[in-house]
Structure formats: C-alpha cells, structure tokens
C-alpha cells in the first residue's frame, strides 16, 4: 500500500517525481563533517533537484534572525531537504540535514526527536520505493592525516556483507584492528541504519577514517569524504570527478599542519609513527605493535584532556 505523506506531520513535498529503482543517500553533520561533505558533494556534482523538506519547527531552534528597520523579516532554521536525480533506471534520492535534532544540549541526536526524524526520512524513502539506503559518517581511527583514509562499512543485513567485501579500501568492523566486529555509530547517521532495519530497508553506513587527534577540531576532513565517495560511487556504478574534494582537502591540510606543529614534540613523535601504519595486510604485524598503539592513544587522550590542541 502506498504511503500517503499528505498526512505525515512535518514532510513537505514540492513535487512527486517518477523515480525508477531509487536509492536513498542520506547524511547529517558529524565529526569532520565527513559524511555530509561526501553526500552534498555528490548531490552538487549530479545537480540533483530539490523536491521536498522536513519542516524544522518541531526539531530545531532557529539559527538566525533578520531584522530590518525594526521589522522582523525572517527567521532561519536548519534545513532538512530531499533532492532527486534521474539516472536512467538507477535513480537517486538525497537527504541532507544541516543539523541533527538534539535534546538536552547533546552534540548528536538521540531519543524521541532523532527517532521521529529518522522515520520521516524513511517515510519519503518508502513513498518513492527506495530499495536501499546509504548513510555516511566518520570513523575515529589511529591513523595519520597524511595517509589515505579507509572506509569502514556497516550494513544492517547479513546479505550485504559479501558485496561490501568487494569494495576497495573498505573494511567491515570485524576487520578493523582491535574492534572485534563491535562499535557504535553515534547520532542519526547511525540511527537511520537501525530504523531502516526495523522497517525492512537494506542499508549501509560508510564511514571515512579521521585521525583520532583531529576528532575534536572544528575542521572538516574532505580527504575522508573523498574515500567515502570513491566507495559510494563505485557501489552506485556512477563515474564522477572528485577533484573538487582534492582542492578542499589541500586547504584543510594546511590548517591541520599548523595545528599539528603545535602538538608537543614528544606526542607528535608518537603520532608521526602512524604515517607508517599500513593496513594493506592486516593479518601481518605492522611496524607498530598493538601495545604501542594503545600507548599512543593514551598519550593523545592525556594531551587533549589537559586542554591542549587549542590552536
């Protein structure tokens, strides 16, 4: 039975495009904005057309007011928008949320509001009969900012695992060193995966690695967004140029280097060793032992707890 969104609170569709076998690609901001930059870059490259939104009032506090000559002209809320792109039988629906709905001052969405929003996004996916959902976010990892980030992939169904094993530069959680197949995807980029499972959608979350020492910085990390997009576009069988992300990455890398040089030499020395970590053959012992990795992690945590990294 087709879902009638006319009565669905909070969803506004400006048009109802005829889509063939669409796939939903969704993202919200998160650590390094890795997922949202990846998804929004693809949306921009494909010139996807906006066709709907989730009304913000119940989810967000306004972010800007415009007053002109004493008259309140406009109140701006974070956008949560849907876009579509016809791709000749493998159409795409994008959802981009500019903020995660949070309660009680938390950084990432959780609880009732997050669940409501995830369901609204999937209501639209259901209406257009999307057959799969992709989300994207960040994977905080013991890596170095000069190395190419891998992509951690988490599916919501066993049947997707063989497909993921075929992706390049991608690992399942069971292949991530020291994880044993376990972990946690914070916020809506993760929650959507779970709600999709509950509602019978197959879904995959692609997370680009970000070095542990960069996770708290107010910087985007386009290098990882590029890794995510390389995997996503191959999975979707579309070819696009990602030069734009390289340009963005060059600018960000300069700022990261400036920050990196402010880290005390002793800790930086430890972090420099991460440049040589290779996961190409994870079964073999790398140049850094697990014990050493643990020590680096502890040093980094100590440094940031002391209020370092304020550069």
């Amino acid at each position: 039975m087709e879902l009638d969104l006319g009565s669905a609170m909070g969803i506004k569709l400006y048009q109802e495009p005829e889509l063939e076998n669409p796939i939903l690609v969704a993202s919200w901001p998160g650590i390094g904005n890795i997922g949202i930059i990846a998804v929004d870059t693809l949306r921009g490259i494909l010139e996807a057309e906006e066709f709907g939104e989730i009304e913000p009032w119940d989810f967000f506090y306004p972010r800007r007011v415009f007053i002109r000559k004493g008259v309140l002209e406009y109140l701006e809320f974070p956008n949560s928008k849907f876009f579509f792109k016809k791709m000749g039988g493998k159409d795409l629906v994008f959802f981009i949320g500019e903020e995660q709905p949070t309660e009680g001052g938390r950084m990432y969405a959780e609880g009732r509001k997050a669940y409501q929003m995830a369901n609204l996004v999937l209501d639209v996916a259901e209406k257009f009969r999307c057959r799969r959902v992709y989300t994207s976010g960040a994977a905080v990892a013991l890596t170095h900012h000069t190395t190419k980030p891998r992509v951690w992939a988490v599916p919501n169904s066993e049947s997707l695992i063989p497909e993921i094993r075929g992706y390049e530069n991608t690992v399942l959680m069971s292949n991530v060193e020291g994880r044993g197949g376990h972990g946690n995807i914070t916020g809506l980029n993760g929650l959507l995966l779970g709600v999709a499972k509950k509602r019978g959608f197959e879904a995959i979350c692609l997370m680009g690695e970000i070095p542990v020492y960069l996770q708290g910085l107010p910087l985007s990390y386009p290098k990882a967004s590029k890794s995510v997009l390389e995997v996503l576009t191959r999975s979707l069988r579309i070819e696009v140029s990602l030069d734009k992300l390289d340009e963005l990455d060059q600018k960000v890398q300069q700022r990261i280097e400036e920050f990196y040089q402010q880290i005390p030499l002793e800790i930086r020395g430890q972090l420099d060793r991460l440049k040589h970590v290779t996961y190409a053959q994870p079964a073999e012992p790398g140049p850094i032992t697990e014990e050493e990795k643990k020590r680096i992690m502890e040093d980094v945590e100590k440094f940031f707890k002391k209020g370092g990294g304020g550069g």
Partner: protein
Amino acid sequence: MSLGKPIKIYKEVELPRPSLVLGWKEDGGNLGRKVTDYLNNKLKGEEFAEIEPEEFFPLGGVAIKGDLAQFPESKFYACPEHELVVFQSDTPGAEWYKFLNSVLDVAENHCRVKELYIIGAMVSFSAHTTPRELLTVVNSAEMKEVLSQYDLARDMDYQTPPGERPTLNSFLLWIARERNIPGVSLWVPIPFYLAAMEDAQAHKKILSFLNERLVLEIDFSDLDQEIREQNEKLALARSRFPQIDDYINRLESNLMLSEEENEELIRKIEDFLKEGA
C-alpha cells in the same frame, strides 16, 4: 477546563479583546519578572491558566535560589479592570516551538488577544546615568505604524552573528506573525553592572510605555522612589570607592573598559548593593 495537554485553564477570562504582556523570569536586570509582577500587583492580576512544565523543563531535581527550592512556572494572569493578560514564565529548555505555540493557543483561543508585547533586556556597555532607551522589533509593518506615535527606537537593523542563536523573544514574535497576531518585542539596554541585579530605571521605561499604550493609569510613585534609592546607592558607591567612580566616569565619557575592568566593576557594584550600601 482544559485545551488539552500541556495547557491547564482554571477559569474563564471575560475580557473582550485584551493585549498580552509576556516576560521571562530570568532576564537581565530582573526585567521580565519585575515588570510582570508589577503589572499583576498594581492591576490585581488573577491567575487563570498555566502551562505544565514536564515537556519543556529539565525536571531532574530542583534548583535552589535565595535559600529556596525553585520549580519552573509558566502562568497566565488576567487583569479584570483592564484589557490585559499577563504571562510570566521561566525560560523553557526544550520543545520551544510547542511551548511558544501553547502560549499563543491560550492567548488566541481562550483570550482572543489582539496584540502581543514581549519584554526583553539587552546588556549595554553604558553607564547607569545614561537615560534608558526602548528599542522595538515588530512582526508587521502595520504594528510599526501603530507604534510610530510613541518615543521608541523603531529602526533597528540586526542579524544574528555567527556562533550565536536568536532569542526566544524573536522566535515567539515570528510564530505570532505566522498566526497573524500583531506583536512587538520591547528591548531595554541595561548597564552591564546592573544586569545580574535590578535596574529600576529599565523597569520604569517599559512600564511607562505599556501604561501609555494600554491606558493602564498606573501611579508610579513607588517605582520612582525605588529609582531614587538606587541612584543614591550608586552615587554613594562612587563617592566611597574612587575606582568605581573612575570606571563609571569613563563609561559616561563613552570610553570602553577592559574586560578585567568590566568584571571588577560588576563585582564591586554587586558587593556594594548586596551589602545594603
């Protein structure tokens, strides 16, 4: 009578087309609480409705203020001999859109409110001897026209700076506009060193405007006395403490103080006024 959760109505309001004055309890210079309390006292405001707190306030315990346990309150009062409804509330911490719409549900559906007056304080880096201004932001050109006959600053241009968020007053004013309720947000700049205390001059500035606009016929002699007393205390602080006098002199000459000087002035004035001069 109940309009449904979260609103509780205790009794009917028989006012043909009242105006609604709204103030928040935690406001600079204690402005929202003082003005709404003052109106209720002078005009015999009777509580007739409230908004239940559970959806809008963190209820993980109680705050203690002035030795007393506090509990969030959001209450409506009707002033029977005047066309006036007063709403006084703690500032909600969640579900703002629902909370503000609940306020307007009572105003619109239960009271048939014709206009909305929202009280707000803004911190000013000027001296207390500078006359208080009344700045306004309206939600329609018609309301601006209505207010043109009063002595108000009516041409403010403003855009929320990066890293900040709009005030709850702006959010309410916008929702009122969406519901076709004419409204104005009234802002009084309060000297920064009085922001955590009381600023009787600011209270009077708002009340005088409301008195004139809503024809309330309030006698302000008690408030005038309060202003005189506060001015005397501040003059005494200046004469006793040359450092305070120096800081205020510089503010009166439109000079900025350093951050440390600002903090010192706040601390010294607060200590002086709290010790009862």
